[in-house]
């Protein structure tokens, strides 16, 4: 185990992997990634494997669009020997009523202003895209053909393999127990397997980011909440895009491997780190999917699980240097969308650490934006 590092990244999910890769690719040496469990144990490995650019805020639109541009070339950029399974067959976001249609139309206009090729569809047009869609229960839909599916496991593996080739040291089953400080500055990271001297730490701990922040005395305004999900037996391909609805509380896609994955949130679920499975979720999901996509009801569920959304007050990520703790960087609060935004997370954190010109304005992603402020721009396009 390394005893000294230039940068220590806490978290072995997609964000930590992307940050490690982007730093190493820029020539930073002596990078250590620490993971308490194993690669993608947390939200990355539990997510719905979707990538979308249809958002209601400028920041999320920009992060998503630039991330998709990376994913399109990731297989070759990272020279990966596996398959990241990036399938761009779109996201069809269905609206339940006239009011939701109005919101989507405004979102599509915003997305178009950033060059995201989304468009509004009538019920009939939506059914051409997903033939088994029950148009009786929808009002309209928005569709973006360049959204899609990406394999969370192999995408993370691709980042880590490339990072390791560039010299990154990755330690799993190595929990961080403390971050040591002297005169307000970071001096090192204490782990179960020993001490690592460093002055730069990145908090990419996902569902546990608040706890890692507390190690340097920061109160990061995020909380975690379980979101449940299930997978069916694989069948022949019948559905290209991800189908989602905010009002019906569902996302559902068929993976390239043939299985359907579907999930929904429960706003009454307690805050905390529970990642269990419930029969209540199963019943609600079975009803929702049988109504919206009737033939999917014929499929057998083979597994269900849960994972943590790390929620920020405005449902947009915190990708930020800490003003109060020099050398402490934060990438958390993705509010359910850290997987699909990871390329930009890695790039922006690298630019902050190396003092490079940022690829996009950072104020709206800063930790300090919440201080004494009313929420200026709330992202509501969240399942």
């Amino acid at each position, binding site marked *: 185990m390394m005893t000294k590092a230039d940068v220590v990244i806490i978290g072995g999910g997609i964000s930590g992997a992307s940050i490690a890769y982007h730093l190493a690719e820029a020539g930073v040496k002596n990078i250590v990634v620490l993971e308490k469990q*194993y690669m993608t144990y947390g939200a990355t490995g539990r997510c719905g494997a979707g990538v979308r650019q249809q958002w209601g805020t400028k920041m999320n639109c920009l992060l998503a669009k630039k991330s998709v541009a990376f994913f399109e070339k990731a297989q070759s950029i990272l020279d990966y020997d596996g398959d990241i399974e990036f399938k761009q067959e779109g996201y069809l976001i269905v609206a339940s009523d006239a009011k939701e249609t109005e919101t989507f139309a405004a979102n599509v206009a915003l997305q178009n202003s950033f060059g995201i090729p989304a468009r509004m569809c009538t019920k009939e047009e939506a059914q051409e895209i997903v033939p088994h869609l029950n148009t009786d229960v929808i009002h309209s839909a928005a569709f973006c053909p360049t959204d899609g599916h990406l394999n969370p496991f192999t995408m993370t*593996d691709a980042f880590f393999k490339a990072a390791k080739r560039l010299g990154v040291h990755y330690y799993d089953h190595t929990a961080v127990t403390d971050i040591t400080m002297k005169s307000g500055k970071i001096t090192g990271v204490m782990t179960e397997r020993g001490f690592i001297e460093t002055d730069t730490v990145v908090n990419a701990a996902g569902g546990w980011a608040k706890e890692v922040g507390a190690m340097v005395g920061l109160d990061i305004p995020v909380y975690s909440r379980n979101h449940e999900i299930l997978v069916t037996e694989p069948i022949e391909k019948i559905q290209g895009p991800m189908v989602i609805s905010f009002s019906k509380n569902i996302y559902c896609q068929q993976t390239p491997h043939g299985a359907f994955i579907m999930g929904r949130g429960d706003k009454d679920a307690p805050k905390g780190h529970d990642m269990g499975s419930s029969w209540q979720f199963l019943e609600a999901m079975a009803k929702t999917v049988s109504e919206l996509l009737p033939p999917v009801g014929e*499929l057998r569920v083979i597994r269900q699980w849960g994972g943590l959304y790390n929620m920020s007050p405005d449902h947009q990520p915190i990708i930020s240097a800490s003003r109060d703790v020099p050398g402490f960087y934060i990438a958390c609060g993705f509010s359910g969308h850290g997987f699909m935004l990871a390329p930009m997370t890695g790039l922006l954190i690298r630019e902050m650490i190396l003092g490079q010109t940022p690829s996009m304005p950072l104020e709206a992603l800063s930790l300090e934006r919440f201080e004494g402020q009313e929420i200026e721009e709330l992202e509501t396009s969240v399942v």
Partner: protein
Amino acid sequence: MDHMNPKDIIICRCSDVTLFDLFELFEQGYRSFEELKRIKRVGMGPCQANTCGKMVQWEIAKYFKIPLEEALFHNLRPFTLGIKLKHIKEGSDT
């Protein structure tokens, strides 16, 4: 069995993973059942590792020369058997 080609020995029938595939992953440094699952889908099919689980555990122990109990089994999650979504819906309607 030792004289059989590992490419001909199917470990996971649901996801079509051979012993050779496992050896390749072991050589690349993946040591745990959870990692093998994530990279090769071993144990993630309709049988949920009810067929291959013990074999995967055994092969990990053998390859890394560790006691069987140290080659951790994968996380067990619901379901035990596949159930149709519409049957779950119908069950909750009554």
